[in-house]
């Protein structure tokens, strides 16, 4: 049995455009403690790649924009979304 705080959630993280270039990769697996939120993942990312913090990124979970309070589940697809520029 896993205790809270242990690694129990693995999410797929996708990074695009400027965030992909900063992280050096378009897709990674991220391991998080049980009950971790999107905010926790964001803080981890910003710590690893400080330049990401200057990008005004949003995040999506399973292809929808969601609040940073969203609790991540094992197998979630999280996307780091810098300011979009379509059209």
């Amino acid at each position, binding site marked *: 049995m896993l205790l809270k705080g242990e690694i129990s959630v693995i999410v797929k993280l*996708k990074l*695009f*455009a*400027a965030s*992909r270039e900063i992280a050096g990769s378009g897709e990674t697996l991220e391991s998080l403690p049980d009950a971790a939120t999107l905010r926790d993942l964001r803080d981890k990312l910003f710590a690893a790649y400080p330049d990401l913090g200057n990008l*005004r990124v949003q995040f*999506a979970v399973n*292809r*929808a*924009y969601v609040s940073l309070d969203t609790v991540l589940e094992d197998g979630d697809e999280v*996307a780091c*979304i*810098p*300011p*979009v*520029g*379509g*059209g």
Partner: protein
Amino acid sequence: MADKRFVVTDALIKADPLVSQLVMAEAGAVVTFVGVVRGNSEGRQVLHLEYEAYPEMAEAVMQQIAEEVRARWPDVQEVAITHRVGRLEVGETAVVIALSAAHRPSVFDALHYAIDRVKEIVPIWKKEVWADGSEWKSEQ
């Protein structure tokens, strides 16, 4: 799929295939917005653009925009959106939006809203490439 309404593609895109998708016996008016790569951005000469997408989410968000449009303008019948990705040259088409309605008045505001929302929320990114550098650009 031949009749998919919300598409991210690396192929050349045109307006008429979307118009044809939306023409039905009761659609008297179809309007389209065609976004074209400009050769000039804030005074700098653009060599080409690189578009990148999160395609699965981009297509879902395009569908959400269509639902927003139909909620606000109930006369709008159908919506189709195609966005191209990859390397685009100046003068090539980056995005086509088409809307159909039985009658005219709604479609112009609805089309304006749709392209604004595409630029605001669809996860697609654009890198401008100049002779002396490049940059990811956003209107946000």
